[in-house]
């Protein structure tokens, strides 16, 4: 039983294209996140949703737009892809209460050519 799943696992695309990454969690959690891990392995939060509402938006270019159709799903759409967007994107979820650990998906490796 996969707790947090992401699709696709790999995404290779050309500069200027628009792409989406999907995330689903079956843990019943209220809070979901998107993280970006760059080539230096630095993991940085991008967005967080709690019960479909955006609660964290970390100075991310507005080419990135998260969408949460329900609390079990959080998708990430990226417009006009740039070379610097190449990274691994992780979705995560947590119960949203204080101190609770985050459960991460397997990641989506995005390569922009």
């Amino acid at each position, binding site marked *: 039983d996969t707790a*947090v799943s992401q699709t696709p696992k790999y995404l290779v695309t050309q500069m200027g294209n628009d792409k989406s990454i999907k995330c689903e969690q079956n843990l019943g959690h209220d*809070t979901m996140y998107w993280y970006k891990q760059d080539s*230096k*392995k*630095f*993991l*940085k*939060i991008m967005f*967080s949703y709690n019960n479909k509402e955006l*609660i*964290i938006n970390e100075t991310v270019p507005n080419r990135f737009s998260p969408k949460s159709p329900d609390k079990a799903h959080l998708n990430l759409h990226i417009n006009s892809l740039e070379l610097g967007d190449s990274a691994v994107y*992780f979705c*995560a979820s*947590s119960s*949203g*209460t*204080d*101190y*609770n*650990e*985050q*459960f*991460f*998906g*397997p*990641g989506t490796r995005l390569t922009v050519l």
Partner: protein
Amino acid sequence: SQKIEQNSEALNIQEGKTATLTCNYTNYSPAYLQWYRQDPGRGPVFLLLIRENEKEKRKERLKVTFDTTLKQSLFHITASQPADSATYLCARPYGGATNKLIFGTGTLLAVQP
């Protein structure tokens, strides 16, 4: 600004020895620190959480300490095994939200048989 610093150099140890990884933070002490393990090509996996008022936490062969005077957490793996080889990430909450995490860059541990 609040930062988390981990030794970016890899730590190489012999099987059976104790591995000790360091996490230093800046500014005020966080309400808690979390430790995660990340294997290549996978998402981080939660290991342990230690609260500000706890000096030490144990889980099987893992031990974490929290020293608010030194602004430091130490992560120990006793009787290390090659299967413990991975990158270990330290994380703290920031920005006043206790479920919003900032991660360190991680320390790569390699346990030699």
